[in-house]
């Protein structure tokens, strides 16, 4: 791989490298028969996910800048048009630091008729076609959590999570003590996350149901969500789901997120009706991945600060 010092990369180099990376991604999808689409960036509906902060526009009526193209892509999928992908900007308010941008480029794609493990292989092939050489193992969330904290994330008591989190220097409020999703995150950031930097690249699978996001739960044990995260050098590169395709189940998930939002003192979000309608109209079984383009470029070009990859020169 070329130089590791980003400051030696001129804007010209950066523009050319980004262009060839995009080309490699498009070539891969073309060879796989996945169709590129461009969906709207503005939406009437913001993301319900409690961990994401929507950026909004207020011109007459409130509009949201998308946090991902998921809603529109799922609406398209319900028309049985086959596999699709989109490359475009997404927005998350107040994200900053060397790994986060408020506006970044998402590569998001959906493959019908495959399972999560086939999707993981799909990601592996995409990375290889972008020039990534290393092998990537699969580890379960439970194995990682146990290794780092000694706890079983699927079965341990909240009180055990609290005590490990506090030992790890996390400040918790009384209202946090029965927020299991938050307690899992607290233990994760204080024990697992520091370990990951020294790990080989991994796909983490089998997330606890509290972190199911929009993934289906396993049919064998519903304590586990059919999701993966790709983590390289301790950095999350991609997130994949065996997607919820039942409208009722998706609605329950949105409602659960709004409940969590209420508990955490966050704004209630209007449910994304077109998304729910699309699922209700009949949706093929589908797995999807969201991959951060700048994060992938950080790995491929060995760059430490995501700002060195963004074309935002301000």
């Amino acid at each position: 791989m070329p130089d590791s010092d980003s400051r030696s990369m001129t804007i010209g180099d950066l523009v050319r490298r980004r262009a060839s990376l995009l080309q490699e991604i498009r070539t891969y999808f073309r060879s796989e028969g996945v169709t590129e689409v461009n969906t709207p960036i503005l939406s009437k509906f913001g993301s319900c996910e409690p961990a994401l902060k929507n950026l909004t526009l207020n011109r007459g009526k409130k509009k949201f800048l998308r946090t991902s193209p998921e809603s529109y892509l799922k609406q398209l999928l319900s028309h049985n048009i086959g596999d699709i992908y989109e490359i475009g900007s997404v927005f998350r308010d107040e994200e900053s630091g060397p790994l986060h941008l408020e506006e970044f480029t998402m590569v998001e794609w959906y493959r019908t008729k495959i399972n999560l493990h086939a999707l993981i292989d799909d990601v592996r092939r995409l990375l290889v076609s972008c020039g990534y050489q290393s092998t990537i193992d699969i580890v379960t969330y439970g194995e990682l959590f146990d290794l780092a904290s000694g706890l079983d994330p699927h079965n341990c008591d909240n009180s055990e999570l609290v005590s490990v989190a506090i030992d790890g220097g996390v400040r918790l409020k009384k209202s946090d003590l029965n927020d299991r999703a938050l307690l899992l995150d607290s233990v994760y950031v204080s024990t697992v996350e520091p370990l990951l930097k020294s790990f080989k690249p991994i796909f983490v699978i089998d997330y606890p149901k509290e972190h199911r996001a929009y993934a289906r739960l396993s049919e064998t044990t519903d304590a586990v969500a059919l999701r993966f995260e790709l983590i390289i050098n301790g950095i999350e590169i991609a997130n994949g789901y065996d997607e919820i395709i039942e409208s009722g189940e998706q609605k329950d998930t949105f409602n659960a997120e709004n409940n969590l939002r209420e508990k955490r003192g966050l704004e209630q979000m209007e449910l994304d009706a077109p998304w729910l309608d699309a699922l209700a109209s009949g949706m093929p079984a589908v797995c999807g991945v969201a991959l951060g383009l700048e994060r992938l470029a950080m790995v491929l070009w060995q760059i430490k600060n995501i700002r060195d990859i963004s074309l935002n020169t301000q």
Partner: protein
Amino acid sequence: MATYSTNQFKPGLKILVDGDPHTILVNDIVKPGKGQAFNRIKIRNLKNGRVVEKTLKSGESIEAADVLEVELQYLYNDGNDWYFMDAKTFDQVSANLDAVGEARFWLKGQEICDVTLWNDLPILVVPPNFVVLEVSESDPGLKGDTASGGTKPAVLETGATVKVPLFVEQGESIRIDTRTGEYVSRSKES
């Protein structure tokens, strides 16, 4: 009560953690994939210098520590406390032994010190990097005494003991580096 939200965190910010004032050294945002964002901070306790790591949920607030760093002139010690004065306003504050700490070995009066005030009270006194002090007690050096590495102990007018070269005599003034507590040179100042 002033507070800072995590999105205002940056190195140098003074915050109150576990009842003590701390300064932020490093501020990192950590976000597990689909989970809650956290700020992981490395902070130094301004009272004892200890560095610890804390993790807070992003968006939370933490109490600001009313900490001020000022230059004050050392006046005198009354046997209990050390008194300092602001040379502009003539306001005086007293510092206890915890705040003055090692600095007490280097202060005889008049020195301009960096004093950290928390809620208007001194919690840390840093003396000037170099001070000149008189040797009040030291045995005459013996020529050829190399067993002690060419140095001998000397008691200074402030009560501190430092190692000095054999040629330094009682009654002389010497320059001390307060950061290491070591002899630097003889001084022509009296």
